């Protein structure tokens, strides 16, 4: 990771972009799958979820980065959890106060951000080793990467399941919605195929290990 004493703009850019594609938390790290699947029936909740994650990620990365030299090994994870849980609670309160419908749609998946591996992973892998700026940029990159992925997934599902996107009709009237895409099946299969597609785009020369006839 970055050496704090000589941060460069290039590094920041690098860090930011890493989260968007190269180390995209959903596609590459396969982390945080539960919200990815649960909230992507439509774009709106997906976006809300993504924003919450960005908020929590940035805040917790800031705190962890500031405290990074004071952490004791046996309490490190506990400390991360505590920090994250705090910001998740705050985010939840905000949602309840300013976006009640969204809060109801997302239900328990907002508090579940606490155990979303992306956040704790970034706290551990980046913030606890890096300075404030790098941590924040990393959090933003990861968060935006997560949000974008969520939104793409949600867009596909929402269009097919309802013919709408952001609750605006986009498909022709003759289109009969595929209700299954709004159900768990749709979530699993769409994400599976998307992952496959992503694997395909950066497939390295893979060797088959079987004795073909």
């Amino acid at each position: 990771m970055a050496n704090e004493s000589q941060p460069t703009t290039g590094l920041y850019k690098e860090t930011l972009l890493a989260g968007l594609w190269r180390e995209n938390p959903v596609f590459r790290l396969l982390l945080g799958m539960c919200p990815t699947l649960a909230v992507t029936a439509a774009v709106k909740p997906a976006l809300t979820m993504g924003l919450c994650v960005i908020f929590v990620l940035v805040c917790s990365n800031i705190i962890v980065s500031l405290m990074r030299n004071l952490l004791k090994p046996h309490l490190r994870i506990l400390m991360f959890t505590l920090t994250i849980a705090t910001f998740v609670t705050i985010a939840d309160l905000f949602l309840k106060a300013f976006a009640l419908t969204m809060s109801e749609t997302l239900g328990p998946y907002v508090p579940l951000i606490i155990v979303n591996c992306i956040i704790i992973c970034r706290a551990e892998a980046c913030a606890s080793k890096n300075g404030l700026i790098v941590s924040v940029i990393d959090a933003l990159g990861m968060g935006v990467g997560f949000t974008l992925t969520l939104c793409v997934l949600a867009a596909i599902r929402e269009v097919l399941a309802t013919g709408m996107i952001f609750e605006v009709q986009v498909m022709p009237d003759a289109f009969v919605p595929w209700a299954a895409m709004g159900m768990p099946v749709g979530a699993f299969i769409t994400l599976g195929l998307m992952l496959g597609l992503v694997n395909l785009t950066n497939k390295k020369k893979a060797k088959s290990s079987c004795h073909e006839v």
Partner: protein
Amino acid sequence: MILANVLELWSSVWPAGVTMLGLGSGFALVLLIASEKLKVTVDPKIEQIHEALPNLDCGACGFAGCGQYAKAVLGDPELLGKCAPGGPETSSKIADVLNLQVSDSGPQQRPIVRCRACTADKTLYAQYQGIQSCIAANALANVQACGFGCLSFGDCTRACKFDALHIVDGMTIVDYEKCTGCTACSKACPRNLIEMVPFGYENMMIVACNSKETGKSTRSICKVGCIGCGICVKQTDVFSVEDNLARIDFTRYEPNEQAETAMNKCPTKVIIYRGKTAPEPPQPGKKPVAATKA
């Protein structure tokens, strides 16, 4: 005014703060005691690897948490790089820990393939139909006329995790840039054609044949086989002939005039160089069909 506000806020806020304080310190205490009282001693290597890991216990590696992965990696270094959250950085750290065990003394061991017959050089008695693997083909006598040479089904290339082996026109060619000397290929070859030898020099001279047939029968089935004529032995005692087959004592080999002469005098041109910058091997007699990429 402000003070009053703050006080009022405080009065509604303190229970939460105190609860959390209690919870936090309680857990801290319990965990501290537990971590000291319930300590289990483990292999320091595992501990080292464990420390290098992110300790997220996320399961991305397919193991039950970082501890298990650490244990597994120590046992089987091929599992390296399974930790997605840690990324390459972690992998290299673990590799460092693991490497402490590897003692590197003497020249590196690298594989040589002791057969240089390309497709055109080989004689076939019959056409093989069946499982395209050297082991399977080797189970049948004389799939090729030469019972010792490379079968070209590429069991070795599949065994190589580093993409360092390729079958080119029926010949197995080692890419010494990529090869790490892991010996997987030499274990895979059912005909034991691949030998790990100490590469004292960038290029090594090798006898690229494994045929123990008499010279006459070797000649009748392969243009580039060793006929055990012993001309090379006459040049330098690095060579020896046994079972109709010349061998090189690699521990004593050094590039010199005599070896070069031996190579040039070899009637079937079976002595060649192999290595990172080895020149194209000479062709005996008539040139075979130009090497086409397999």
